[in-house]
């Protein structure tokens, strides 16, 4: 059995890298749309002001992109070095989407990015505008493939386990792509990027208002960003609602952990904060029915029957089936050359229990419960900060429309200081999604302790601290370049 310290450090390193990567991605997704809308206004209104406005935000987009580029590649390094069992076990399920993403991103970036930055005076306005929109759409599509791969880990579909190769093989590409978890996750992640871009633009624009400079530029940017942000936030809420249904259905332990719900039932309450609840709200969120049954942590561990008569196995029963699957896998391996008939029986036993394969590694049912306080509070940070930011964008847009924002210093300060909140929101969302999935790397099939490579803890610790140093350095460089560009300001004429 691998050391728990190795699992812990490998997870910490992956979490650090993924969290760092997610600092840059949402701003890329959001700013791309905002600058595309601004350029559209330039083409429609034929007003040079909108061109300069779009160009300024493109500059910040480029800085963010340059620092963020390739941070995702580090995750791939970690797959090969620290998560080699996992990387092989997932087979082409992960490889295919990532290969598509790599090829697609390369061609997108090499063509439309270049046209967007180099082509202002060389191609027609409409062709340039099309390139900018392709960058925005392409960035979102590029995120699609990694989210499909991630969603497969949350809810594995469209594959079969091959014990000869010890890999999962894709049998239904469209089941993988149209995985309901992937669909809601894609929209949730992309539209949360719109929120990030909007809050970033509003915050920076308010800084200009506080400094009493670039007023027309700042107010115009706020108008566009707030509209994009409000639309994005409502889309985040809709996709989040759909995500809640999927988590309730496919990952009930994650939902129970996010609510700190020990004993479930019908009319399950939603916890505002510990001790303050809205009766029936969790049932509505998880099933769209106030009488819907939501299992709690203890129900999931002990097994339960829904009011509709659906029976769910206890943790002990799943662990028993997992051990049968694991033993059958071992027997099949040993016997397939020497005793094909017994091997065939072992293979059949494996196939019958393969959906519980990962439970074969679980030693006690407590291992199946993720870190409840972490998931509970991360979920609330995401929802409460997100709600506050929606309210802020509505108020800012309203005040701008009424012509009062320019004199409301407190609101300008609140907007500027809210920039970090949108990042906390996004990071908290990923903590719910990923830490809430524990102990699984692939839900039900592979726990983290079986997915990790047999490497020394010291090696993982070393690279962890190297990453901390490198990431801090690059983040400081980005902040410096971005702040310099902001201080310099746009080249618009007031």
């Amino acid at each position: 059995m691998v050391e728990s310290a190795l699992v812990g450090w490998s997870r910490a390193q992956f979490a650090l890298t993924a969290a760092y990567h997610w600092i840059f991605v949402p701003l890329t997704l959001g700013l791309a749309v905002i600058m595309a809308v601004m350029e559209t206004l330039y083409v429609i209104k034929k007003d040079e002001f909108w061109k300069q406005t779009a160009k300024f935000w493109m500059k910040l987009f480029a800085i963010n992109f340059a620092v963020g580029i390739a941070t995702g590649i580090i995750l791939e390094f970690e797959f090969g070095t620290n998560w080699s069992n996992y990387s092989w076990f997932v087979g082409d399920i992960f490889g295919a989407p990532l290969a598509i993403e790599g090829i697609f991103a390369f061609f997108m970036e090499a063509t439309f990015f270049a046209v967007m930055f180099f082509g202002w005076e060389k191609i027609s306005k409409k062709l340039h505008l099309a390139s900018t929109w392709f960058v925005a759409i392409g960035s979102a599509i590029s995120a699609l493939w990694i989210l499909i791969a991630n969603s497969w880990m949350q809810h594995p579909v469209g594959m079969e386990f091959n014990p000869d190769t010890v890999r999962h093989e894709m049998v239904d590409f469209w089941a993988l792509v149209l995985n309901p978890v992937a669909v809601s996750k894609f929209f949730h992640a992309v539209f949360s990027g719109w929120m990030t871009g909007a809050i970033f633009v509003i915050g920076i624009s308010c800084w200009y208002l506080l400094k009493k400079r670039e007023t027309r530029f700042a107010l115009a940017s706020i108008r566009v960003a707030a509209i994009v942000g409000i639309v994005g936030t409502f889309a985040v809420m809709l996709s989040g609602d759909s995500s809640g249904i999927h988590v309730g259905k496919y990952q009930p332990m994650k939902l129970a952990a996010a609510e700190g719900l020990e004993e479930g039932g019908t009319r399950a309450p939603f916890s505002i904060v510990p001790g303050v609840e809205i009766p029936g709200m969790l049932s509505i969120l998880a099933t769209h029915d106030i009488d819907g049954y939501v299992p709690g942590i203890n129900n999931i561990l002990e097994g339960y029957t829904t009011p509709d008569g659906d029976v769910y196995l206890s943790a002990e029963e799943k662990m028993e089936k997992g051990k049968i699957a694991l033993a059958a896998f071992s027997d099949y391996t040993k016997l397939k050359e020497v005793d094909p008939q017994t091997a065939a029986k072992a293979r059949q036993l494996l196939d019958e229990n393969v959906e519980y394969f990962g439970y074969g590694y679980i030693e006690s049912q407590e291992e199946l419960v993720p870190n409840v306080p972490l998931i509970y509070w991360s979920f609330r940070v995401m929802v409460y900060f997100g709600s506050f930011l929606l309210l802020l964008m509505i108020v800012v847009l309203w005040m701008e429309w009424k012509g009062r924002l320019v004199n409301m210093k407190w609101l300008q300060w609140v907007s500027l200081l809210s920039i970090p909140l949108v990042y906390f929101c996004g990071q908290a969302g990923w903590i719910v999604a990923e830490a809430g999935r524990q102990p699984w790397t692939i839900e039900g099939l592979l726990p983290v302790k079986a997915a990790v490579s047999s490497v020394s803890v010291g090696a993982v610790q070393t690279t962890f601290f190297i990453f901390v140093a490198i990431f801090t350095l690059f983040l400081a460089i980005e902040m410096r370049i971005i702040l310099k560009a902001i201080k310099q300001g746009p080249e618009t004429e007031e």
Partner: protein
Amino acid sequence: MKKLILSIWNFYADGFKNMTWGKPLWLLIILKAVILFAILRVFFFKPVMAGKTDEQKSEYVRTQLIRS
């Protein structure tokens, strides 16, 4: 065809040549690529199963999974 390739080449060449604030960003990208691929990848992130054939990889992971 040759004319098309030449005009694409000129488009990129002019773009890079006339770049102003983009130059430090490219330096940053190159610096990062060197750190990632020439240092981290080479010295710290050697794939555990590098150099193995697919059969050997299957066998290695099989042993790991059965032993875990």
